[in-house]
């Protein structure tokens, strides 16, 4: 709980600080404060490893799984805060509040990772979502941003409603909202009531919306494209991580009695999602939209981890998410660094980037290659790990689909690489200057990608012990 308290304190102190800071600088300073706070809290989080247990009548749980997801969330938020700091000029107004909203969203996401009760989970989810709706529409001068906000809000609200309705059935069937209690009651009953499965489907649909699983994904490209870049980054990383944090815990607890149906459901969803995301990305010309489609594809790979029965798939999800966060963050760091000097988010704006700024191009290259799953980057082992676990459960067809789409994804990523490296920049464009702090952050992300890609062992070990601590903490 210390971390959560710290987080709340951080958010509130930022809120107060915002009142006293000069309008023009508040965003910058708050971002720095928040980054420092998040970094410290991350350290604190690490020290909480081992102190596992429940709180608030077991509606809050702190175990390895929660800590791992929180760690990923903190890293993602750290990147997003930095992006927000560099994005001040584009925001134009409400810079301080922007940082606040990121922290609110983090609070929501953080509680999602620890929630052991649907009630807490629901409120946390809404905290995250509402903050995101607002941030998505933050660029008031851009129609696309408002449009994205509206779309996200409407569909998000629908998904909330579907979630609630599903929850009511789960609650009605079992008479509880606590994960463990529900699981116990279901295990003790001889048959699995249809109403429970019905509720489960609705809940999964709603969470599928959050993690952008086909067919609940249609908001993704539009919202990713329209939202301010740091928000897109947040959606792609932290929000998705939160969704998977919830799904993993639910699959392991509440839904575990329906393992058979889950495997069927998630494997089909995973296949559809992988195919849709990767094929849909091919014709895209907007880099953020392209990353949106690609994030759908990645959600598909992550869903494979859910489809695989047992704990291995979930370990793979942890690894995958962290590597995905590093890679995606790296790509968005580049986009944010470019934000001031490109006219639009069209891929063609990156033409000749390697000439204009080798460092940015290299960061983008590493990030895209990692996303595509090319060794020696983290994305490779992530895919390998998850497909390995899938193969273990005998779903060869899913492995084949996953692998074939690696090729597809390589195609559209390489198209971007080609634009950056092979094409000549338009004459007269100046070289781009990248600040040291930006370089440092990119370096951090690249280092993460590389370390995860080469020294996979420790990460796998942490993931494994996270899952085993989940078992012992219950």
């Amino acid at each position: 709980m210390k971390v959560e308290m710290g987080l709340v304190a951080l958010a509130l102190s930022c809120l107060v600080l915002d009142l006293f800071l000069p309008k023009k600088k508040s965003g910058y300073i708050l971002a720095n404060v928040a980054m420092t706070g998040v970094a410290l809290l991350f350290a604190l989080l690490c020290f909480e490893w081992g102190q596992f247990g429940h709180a608030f009548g077991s509606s809050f749980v702190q175990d390895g799984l929660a800590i791992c997801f929180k760690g990923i969330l903190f890293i993602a938020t750290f990147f997003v805060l930095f992006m927000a700091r560099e994005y001040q000029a584009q925001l134009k107004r409400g810079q301080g509040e922007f940082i606040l909203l990121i922290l609110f969203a983090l609070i929501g996401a953080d509680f999602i990772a620890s929630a052991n009760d649907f009630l807490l989970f629901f409120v946390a989810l809404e905290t995250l979502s509402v903050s995101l709706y607002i941030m998505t529409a933050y660029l008031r001068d851009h129609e696309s941003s408002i449009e994205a906000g509206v779309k996200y809000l409407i569909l998000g609200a629908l998904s909330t409603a579907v979630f609630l309705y599903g929850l009511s059935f789960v609650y009605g069937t079992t008479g509880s909202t606590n994960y463990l209690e529900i699981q116990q009651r279901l295990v003790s009953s001889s048959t699995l009531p249809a109403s429970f499965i019905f509720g489960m489907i609705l809940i999964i649909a709603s969470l599928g919306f959050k993690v952008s699983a086909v067919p609940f994904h249609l908001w993704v490209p539009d919202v990713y494209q329209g939202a301010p870049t740091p928000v897109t980054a947040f959606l792609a990383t932290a929000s998705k991580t939160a969704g998977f944090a919830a799904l993993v815990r639910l699959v392991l607890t509440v839904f575990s009695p329906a393992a058979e149906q889950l495997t069927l459901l998630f494997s089909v969803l995973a296949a559809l999602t992988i195919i849709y995301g990767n094929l849909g990305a091919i014709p895209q010309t907007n880099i953020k939209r392209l990353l949106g489609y690609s994030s759908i594809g990645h959600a598909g790979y992550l869903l494979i981890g859910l489809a695989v029965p047992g704990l291995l798939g979930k370990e793979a999800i942890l690894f995958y998410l962290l590597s995905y966060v590093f890679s995606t963050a790296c790509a968005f760091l580049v986009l944010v660094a470019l934000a001031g000097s490109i006219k639009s988010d069209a891929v063609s704006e990156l033409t000749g980037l390697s000439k204009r700024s080798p460092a940015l191009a290299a960061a983008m290259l590493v990030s895209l290659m990692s996303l595509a799953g090319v060794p020696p980057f983290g994305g490779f082992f992530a895919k390998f790990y998850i497909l390995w676990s899938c193969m273990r459960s005998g779903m060869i067809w899913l492995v084949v689909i996953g692998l074939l789409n690696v090729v597809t994804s390589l195609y559209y990523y390489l198209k971007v690489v080609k634009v950056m490296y092979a094409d000549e920049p338009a004459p007269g464009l100046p070289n781009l200057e990248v600040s040291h702090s930006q370089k440092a952050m990119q370096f951090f992300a690249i280092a993460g990608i590389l370390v995860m890609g080469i020294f996979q062992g420790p990460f796998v070990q942490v993931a494994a012990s996270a899952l085993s601590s989940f078992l012992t903490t219950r």
Partner: protein
Amino acid sequence: MVAHIILFAPLTAAVFITFFGLRRPKLSAGVALAGILLSLALSTFMFWSNAFEVRGGDAWIQAPGLLVQFGFLIDPLSLLMLLIVTGVGSCVFLYSISYMKGDTSYARYFASLSLFAFSMIGIVLSNNFLMLFVFWELVAVSSYLLIGFWFEKPSAADAGNKAFIVNRLADFGFLLGILYVWMLSGAAGTERTFNFAELARRLPEYLQNGTIAPAAMTIAALLVFCGVVGKSAQFPLYIWLPDAMEGPTPVSALIHAATMVAAGVYLMTRSFFLVSASPEALAVIANIGAITALLAGMLAVVQNDIKKILAYSTVSQLGYMVVALGLGSSTAAMYHLSTHAFFKALLFLGAGAMIHGLHTQDIWEMGGLFKKMPVTAATFLIGTAALCGIPPLSGFFSKDEILHLALEHNKLIFGVMLFTASLTAFYMTRALWIAVLGPDRAHGHKKNDHEHGNAHDAPFAMKLPLILLAILSMIGGFLGIPTFLSGEHAEPLNMTVAATSVGAAVFGIVFGTMLYSKKSLVHDPLKRSLGTFYQFVVKKYYLDEFFVWLAGLFQNALARVFFWFDTNVVIDRGVNGAASVTSSFGSLLRRAQTGVVQSYAMVFAIGIVAIVYFLLMRS
């Protein structure tokens, strides 16, 4: 060890020239000559000391199931061939020193020539099929390099390519033959071998006890013979040899008259155990030889280029040798090979001297040479006589042996051979009258008068080989070559055959003299009198056209079809098709992204309905 030195001396010379001699022409010529002379000296030493050896040699390629040796087989056959190669080789090297003087690539010439000598000696010394094949290919390369020596000249470059390709085509069969023989050698479950001695022991035995079928032997023999057809320029692959005359004349003398082209005959002799066991193969070989001899003889009649005349003559004489093989006597073949090496090398070198002096190869621009270059003319005359089979010159004896053989075995072939003998005499007489004895025709229609007028006998370095070879051509019949080879005493001359053959030769000479001794002759009188047939022969029986058509079939038709297939089917339809299906699928998918938020909600709802249906309602 001696054999090693014989083999590697020319190679060392070649390597030395490549690394150190490219800018030092004189040094490189000296080194090359030293190399071949060393080989000659040691060969002679071996000959005198009767140092026959049939050693296993060292393992060259050793792998499970395969042992290829690097070893020498030295017996009378290889020793004789070795002497011819190094002997004629030395003459040609010596001759080349002044013949090639002033050429910009003087050193390269000697390097290539030394490489050739190395490869040729390798063929002779090899104790197994694969090693022989290695050198067999190497002579092809050196021949390619030497034919295309003046590679800036398109015709020379083309000729080199043609020679190489035709030989490769023949080696297709030869290599299959080697593999086939290799397989047969293990028919009884023993370890397979390429070794000649071992094969000669095993194969007849296997044939005897039925381990291998007679047909198998025929196949093996004919496949190996394929190589001979290429290298020894037999019908229908002789087409490369006349073109090979684009190379420097000493090269033609050494490679394309005396040694390399004879390598095929040597090979057949070496592997005679294959052929002798198969009457069918023998018949095929004899017939091919006869056809070659006849066709090439006729071709020689219509040539105007002195080297081409000699080239076709070579082909024709090779036909004789092959006939001898086909009739079952390798000794006769080798006998004719030896004498032919002497007089044909002599003729080529003589022709070279004429070309050197007159700067033309057209016999109709020569003439009156006895005055200008008496030594050349005289040796040329001796060579001609030897070729025509005038007793007691060397050609008479060897040719007589073959005719005798033919008479005994196959009357038809005898007739053909006899006709060819007469044809030989005829075209050589023609060449002699027009190019050497006749009046100097160049003044009438040639521009470089001053050079022509200054034509004189070659320098000593060129004359010496001529004289040496002339001597050999004269006494070649008395050296006891058949005895040396077969160990038996030569049969006495069959007077009937001898008389017939001399008669045929004389007929040819007389007829030739009648036609071509006229001083006023400017054009070939045969052209008019033979009409269409003459044209047919001039066009080389359209055999080249046939091959061009065949090559075109492969190169243009089939290859183009494949290329078309590659670009339009494999790539376009297959690859791009798959790619475009994928990406159009992508475009199709994104149509779901209408932009209207309610349609997204609709899909969301449909998704729920579908999942509920499939997961809950269906069962």
